[in-house]
């Protein structure tokens, strides 16, 4: 009975040792993966900041203005003007087309009294 217990506990120790060994290696593998991912994130962040800087550089107002001037024939871009920014209510109705004058009448007004 006692020797059975001893053998069993020896097996248990071996099994636990094996489990701990595997866990240890798995943890180290995960840590290596985390490190790799973090390095990748870092690289991507760096690339993103470079792209942001490049975006800002390519969109700088001086360059856009020059491009608008170079491509004026195709795009016809001009600076934004106040009259392009009115409200619809400010637009007057088109003038009503009057019928042609067929019988002209000569008349003048003097001091509000018709002659």
């Amino acid at each position, binding site marked *: 009975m006692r020797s059975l217990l001893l053998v069993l506990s020896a097996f248990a120790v071996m099994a636990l040792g094996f489990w701990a060994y595997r866990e240890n290696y798995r943890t180290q593998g995960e840590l290596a993966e985390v490190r790799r991912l973090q390095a990748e994130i870092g690289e991507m962040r*760096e690339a993103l*900041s470079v792209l942001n800087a490049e975006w800002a*550089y390519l969109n*700088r107002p001086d360059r856009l203005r020059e491009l608008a001037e170079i491509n004026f024939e195709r795009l016809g871009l001009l600076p934004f003007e106040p009259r392009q920014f009115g409200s619809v209510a400010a637009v007057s109705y088109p003038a009503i087309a009057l019928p042609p004058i067929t019988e002209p009448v000569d008349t003048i007004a003097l001091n509000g009294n018709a002659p």
Partner: protein
Amino acid sequence: MIRTPLRPLARILSARAKGENPDVIERENIRIRHEAMRDSARMRAEGRLLVLGLAFLAGFAAVGFRMGVLASTDPAEPATAATGAAIIAQRADITDRQGRILATNLVTHSLYAQPQQMVDPAGSARKLAQIFPDLDADRLVKDFTGTRKFLWLKKKISPEQMQLVHEIGDPGLLFGPREMRLYPNGAIAAHVLGGASFGREGVSSAEVVGTAGVEKTFDRWLRDPANGGAPLRLSLDLTIQSTVEDVLSGGMKLMNAKGAAALLMDAKSGEIVALASLPDFDPNTRPAPATKGDPSDNPLFNRAVQGVYELGSTFKIFAIGQALDLGLVAPGTMVETKGPMVWGKFRIRDFHNYGPQLSVTDVIVKSSNIGTAHVAQMIGGSRQQDFLGKLGLFDPTPVELVEAPGAKPLKPTKWPEITTLTVSYGHGVAASPLHLAAAYATMVNGGTRVAPTLLMRANAEPGPRVISEATSAIIRDLLRQVVVRGTATFGNVPGYEVGGKTGTADKPKPTGGGYYKDKVVATFAAAFPMSDPKYVLVVSLDEPVETSGTEPRRTAGWTAVPVGAEIIRRAAPLLGLRPVLEPVAEAGVIRVSN
């Protein structure tokens, strides 16, 4: 263990036989036993002490060793912690009010050499001099073959240059990672941003420190890791800033001015939307400050903030505004304008003769020095000083630029009555365009004090009241009249109800003693739309001459005002202000007769 008996029979018996006391033997044995017991106990105690001492020594050694290791190793990020918003740059970005980048960082490399590791010092030196034309080959050969163990070659190199250096293939040429400050928009907003340079430098990294402008003011904040890389959001608007600079530089050339400044400010919150000073510079390659010559001619000089000039007639509205607020005059009150006005040995003149008297409105509209001086006489010196102080015209502006606290307005130390008279039309007190903009904002926004700022404000509390709401409304009307029928008629922009005041001040001679006859600072301070002012604009031209007429014209109405009007025409729609339909003169029936 064999226990030694205390009374060994053989010795007892022999002692008895000799007639000795056998107890002596027992006592002797007890003593010997006790001594042995004591010795063994001491040995044990000493052994324990030794072990304990060794344990303490090991403990302290472990702690000390660990401390040494921690102190000498490079910092490492915790590998297992979750990454939140990680900081990628040591210095935060600066953006405009819409989040567009004004300053950011770029990863680059520095180049250094360790000559004792070099394979071919002379050949490498020659090739390096080919890649970098500013390096001298002979000097490099001397450095590489001498006793030096380390030298910096370049602080920043481009990836292409790095590749070329790689191709030399010398193991003694090494690269260190660097973060470089980049201003993608070039010279736009250069005076606000300032610039940055390297502080303490090491092989693996270097500090980036601000050298001027907001970069220096917020240096600590920008480098603080606690912000988690959040950008510094300025109140500037990149589009408006670029437009203002564009128009201003065109206007400066057209008016043959040697310098110009423009400033667009929110009339209620004091947020500066655009701040331009010409000539300007590229903050990416910030020039070294000039050591000789007039500092105000240097491109680094921020005319809008540091340029403290007498601003001339733009000051008149302060005297008139105060008199209106005190109830001393009403817009229709007639004021004497018969010239010249004699005060002691001084004579105050007007640009034209405006007849014996003008209404207060016309004093402003026609810009009469004599009329304003008479009004200032009613106010008196102490009240006038108090009022100008409340407008912030005697203290440096609180704007967040390192240059601002140095730009203290010049005011006379004594304030006799003649000073009261001259200051009322802008002579004797010198302030910067920024001071003027803040004071105009205070006058037109309903009368509450405005503190200029470069930071975006979510909601601005109105400042302390300086003049009443009703006075502010009258002032708005006066300033509108100046543009409609006064000295600033070129300033009218259809749809935007521009109001403003011109100011032409003779430049003082730098040697002291008098003013130049043909050098002026022309200023136009405006606000729009006048029914409810949203923005204040100040344009200032340094030594402008308008030469389209028969004789050169230098007054602000001919120089600064057209430039200001063009800025408003271009910038107002971009600011989201819709042009309003101004009532046209009614189409009345006019009687004609032949």
